């Protein structure tokens, strides 16, 4: 697959490095010579220096034969123009990062009468197939974590019938046991095991150590019960303190407020604080930007159900999360930029660290699929993927079990959805045409797995 990534900022760099690890052919277009040099030095990709919103540069990047164009410069308008022109030149699919939510929705243009507004300009007309907005994605993810029973993120497959959820092995029911001996209350598959920076597909006799991350695949109805052996179910929060009133902070506050949660939003900049308080209905906006104990105690963080740190400065966020934990908050969620910091932060006492970059990469990965994959989620620190396939009747794997095929070692089938039933497969389960199959695999094995779901 030939992919053109426009913009070598942190998102562009991350997307390019992620895709180049999957052995795709990638060209990065970047205007700034220094950023271009960094990409040239550190990644196995082609580099074109120039402004991508001009046909000459796009032509130089051979956008006409691109299967995908990902425009992730810092300027919304430039991204959209790039996608528009790339589409005109012949690119198959385009993705634009657009921060301004007004662009990515339908544009409303007045109809004949004042009362009949019409939707006229669709994103497709702009030549953009997918809008990604890392900040909005992050805000959505935070809200979804906060409204769930457990502190960890969740991925849904097969229209929500199957869930994949990450749990930390900390309770006595799990640690020190072999996987086959863990008393799971409901059927499930341990698809991946993360220990430190390493991810692998575990064998049933592998021992689980304290601090391991287990990636469980199970039917949705069973997931909540399964979680009980890992941690105490949390009650959904009634009071949340958000530190940092940027895009993420504002959108989390707005969404939580709609769900009837009491929100306290802390923002450093007085003007922005004013603006936030006028935009939000019930949330309390506090002007203050240093995460010191005194301020947090004063504002009642100790009694809040959750604390979200979402300023633009990742180190400040981690620090704030730690101070909040120290003060006594029960759940803390922290936003970081660099995906590498997620584990570090979670190791020192942050419940969930999340990176908008990673979410953005996950969204883009959806579009880089071939071989009939329906949906994709990145697991852990971007080292593994969970992929949903619909089995075609001429696929290699069709009417076979994994035991019969050369199934890649570092990949596992987590669940098979046949009609309305969710099957948890063993080595001998035969995959039938029309099944929806959820596979977890290390990034390096993804190509081998995809091959099995294609026609021979």
């Amino acid at each position: 697959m030939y992919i053109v990534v426009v913009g070598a900022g942190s998102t562009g760099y991350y997307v390019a490095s992620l895709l180049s690890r999957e052995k795709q052919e990638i060209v990065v277009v970047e205007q700034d010579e220094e950023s271009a040099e960094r990409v040239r030095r550190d990644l196995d990709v082609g580099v074109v220096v120039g402004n991508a919103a001009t046909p000459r540069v796009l032509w130089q990047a051979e956008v006409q034969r691109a299967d995908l164009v990902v425009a992730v410069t810092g300027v919304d308008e430039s991204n959209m123009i790039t996608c528009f022109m790339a589409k005109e030149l012949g690119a198959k699919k385009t993705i634009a990062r657009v921060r301004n939510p007004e662009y990515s929705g339908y544009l409303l243009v007045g109809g004949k009468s004042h009362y009949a507004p019409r939707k006229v300009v669709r994103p497709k007309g702009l030549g953009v197939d997918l809008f990604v907005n890392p900040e909005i994605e992050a805000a959505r993810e935070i809200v979804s974590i906060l409204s769930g029973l457990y502190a960890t993120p969740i991925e849904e497959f097969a229209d929500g019938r199957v869930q994949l959820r990450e749990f930390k092995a900390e309770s006595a029911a799990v640690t020190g046991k072999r996987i086959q001996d863990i008393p799971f209350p409901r059927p499930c598959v341990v698809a991946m095991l993360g220990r430190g920076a390493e991810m692998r597909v575990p064998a049933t006799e592998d021992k689980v150590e304290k601090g391991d991350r287990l990636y469980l695949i199970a039917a949705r109805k069973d997931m909540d019960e399964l979680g009980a052996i890992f941690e105490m179910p949390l009650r959904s929060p009634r009071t949340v303190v958000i530190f940092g009133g940027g895009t993420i902070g504002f959108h989390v506050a707005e969404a939580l407020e709609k769900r009837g949660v009491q929100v306290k939003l802390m923002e450093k900049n007085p003007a922005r604080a004013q603006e936030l308080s006028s935009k939000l209905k019930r949330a309390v906006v506090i002007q203050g930007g240093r995460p010191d104990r005194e301020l947090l105690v004063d504002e009642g963080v100790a009694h809040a159900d959750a604390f979200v740190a979402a300023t633009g400065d990742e180190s400040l966020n981690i620090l704030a999360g730690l101070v909040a934990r120290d003060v006594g908050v029960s759940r803390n969620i922290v936003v970081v930029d660099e995906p590498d910091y997620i584990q570090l932060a979670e190791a020192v006492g942050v419940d969930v660290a999340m990176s908008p970059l990673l979410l953005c990469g996950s969204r883009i990965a959806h579009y880089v699929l071939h071989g009939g994959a329906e949906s994709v989620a990145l697991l852990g620190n971007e080292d593994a993927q969970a992929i949903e396939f619909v089995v075609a009747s001429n696929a290699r794997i069709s009417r076979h079990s994994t035991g019969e095929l050369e199934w890649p070692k570092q990949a596992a089938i987590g669940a098979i959805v046949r009609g309305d039933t969710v099957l948890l497969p063993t080595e001998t389960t035969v995959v039938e045409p029309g099944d929806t199959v959820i596979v977890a695999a290390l990034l390096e094995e993804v190509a081998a797995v995809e091959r099995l779901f294609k026609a021979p």
Partner: protein
Amino acid sequence: MSIRVVFKYLGVVLAVLGGLLCFPLLWSVTIAHDGEHLSFLVPIAIALLGGLAMFRFIPSEERSLSRREGLALVTCTWVVGSVVGALPYYISDTLSSFVDAFFETMSGFTTTGATVLTTVGPQAPSILLWRNFSQWIGGMGIITFFVALFPMLGIGAARLFEAEMPGPQPERLRARVADTARALWALYMAFSLVEFVLLWLVAGLPFYDAMNIMFGTMPTGGFLHIQESVGAYMDQPFVTSVVTFFMLAAGANFALYFYALRRRQLGAIFGNPEFRLYVGIFLVSSIAVAVNLVSRADVPVGEAVRHAAFQVASIQTTTGFATADFDTWPSLSRCVLLVLMLVGASAGSTGGGLKVVRLLVVVRYAFREVVAAFNPRAVMPLKVGGETVPEPTVSAIAGMAALYVLALVGGTVVMCALGLDVVTAFSSVAATVGNVGPGLGGVGPALNYAFIPDLGKLVLALLMLVGRLEFVTVMALASASFWRWR
């Protein structure tokens, strides 16, 4: 830096080399029947088994290489590869001293073509084939070959590739380095095949001769299986013109061919400023040498033109074939050839030397300093072909040129200390650093390097490697801070 990772991958490269050694072995067993199979079986066993064992048993993760590891791996590959490649000469007793065998192999792999064989010809055909085949491998680079075969290294491959490809900044023709290496090898093989077919089927040379000439031409090597070099074919103008053409083709930037083929515009090659200067140097030098030969040595005009064109192409592309003993030519001709040795071929070619594009930049750089002396406020970006050369590249080129001069001076002093006369000492150093082969005086085209003391041979072998890998790669390993901050 992890030495283990370096040695682990060195194992794979060695195994590849073992595979390549099978070619002369097969030739020896099936066609030549010269009884030299043991001379090849031993190094093949060492390279294949040792290499795979190194890969299998050195405990280290398989990962992408860091910059330092890349530099170390490339240098180690060339040195260890030359030791293994020297075994056939040593075991077959073609060369009784191992230093000689090492010199000959390094000369082959670096496409220098400087020989210690006093007469070429009586040796076993498979040994001579290995001698020529080794230059063909070295021409596009064994690391580049390895990168093309094993795309597992990721970005580490780019570091290896850049350390081995000649030129200021190797161009990535394709987005991925492994694809780039494959494209280059494909072009190289295509050129080789065309030349071979022209010599074998059109010119009617025997299969073995045509193959050996091709193995000497395409990498701009200079070894041949006969003592008289290409001089033996002087009565066949078609052969000498085919060889001249392919020497010149191999001395130009392969990236130009790639883009010309891809965009289907052959004319685009001539728009490249380096290529124009390269052709210009060839034409001007050929005419100068021909006129000099006619006026000073009373050579007939036709013969003078043919000798001049062939010899200029041979020295300029750093091949080192000879149709005549140019050491006996008038001094202007000798001087022109000596200068051509120093300038060398184009960047991104299989040739050696300083490279034409660097000369272009260095000369403009020098003139810019002159203008800056009387007009200090002038802003003068350095342009080549209408495009500004970035200042970091300019300073890298100036640094490389300085290292080149230092190597020439230092090498000459060492060779003089070992008892060589000044002309022989200087030209031997110029001919090895520039990967040319024959020099002037005692190392002229009719003579060889056998008389030089062992220490001198090792110094020259080192200079060949330094010249082939363009200084920085090898010299980085010699600098203290490379090891201090590992």
